[in-house]
């Protein structure tokens, strides 16, 4: 069964360092997303991406964040200068353009980021 894969599963970094989280969405999906979940809190939307452009971004997604689809398979989230409050589980998700169930996102297992 097709699935969204994310790497790394866990990354520990020092405050101020750059981090890149990688995702391989399901191959025929064209909508891509990043969500995050701080421990004990809700899943929060960060950004959506389609046709090599950001479709929508949240207030959390400030200038320290960027996304990129560098090739035909990967979708990355970069945090330029990490802060303690960036510690969270980051979920990549993808969905079909012509889904019969708009809003059906397929999530990866997440990348846990710990900022020290």
């Amino acid at each position, binding site marked *: 069964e097709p699935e*969204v894969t994310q790497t790394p599963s866990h990354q520990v970094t020092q405050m101020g360092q750059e981090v890149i989280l990688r995702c391989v969405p399901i191959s025929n999906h064209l*909508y*891509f*997303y990043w969500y995050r979940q701080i421990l004990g*809190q*809700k*899943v*929060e*939307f960060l950004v*959506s*991406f*389609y046709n090599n452009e950001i*479709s*929508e971004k*949240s207030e959390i997604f400030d200038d320290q964040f960027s996304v990129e689809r560098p090739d035909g398979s990967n979708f990355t989230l970069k945090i330029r200068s990490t802060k303690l409050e960036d510690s969270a589980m980051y*979920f990549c*998700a993808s*969905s079909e353009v012509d889904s019969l*169930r*708009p*809003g*059906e*996102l*397929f*999530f*990866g*297992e*997440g990348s846990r980021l710990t900022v020290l």
Partner: protein
Amino acid sequence: QKEVEQDPGPLSVPEGAIVSLNCTYSNSAFQYFMWYRQYSRKGPELLMYTYSSGNKEDGRFTAQVDKSSKYISLFIRDSQPSDSATYLCAMRRSNFGNEKLTFGTGTRLTIIP
């Protein structure tokens, strides 16, 4: 007032019991409602998808939407230990494009054998 409110639990029930999970929302623009299930250390997966007010059934699961009260529910009949997970309600305003989902905090459910 939060856009989406969900009792975080935790909720523990014996195997075979009927489980009721609920969310309320404040934004009347939400029109599409989903329940996602999240097992420990996994990403959320879609469980139920509804649009109109009323009930939608899928096996042991029933999703209920009351737009007039801004209230949605998920019922699980004959609950099984494998149903132990965190249940997240999610909603969006339209079925257009890749609009974001707004999630509740999730309810952690444990089914006791």
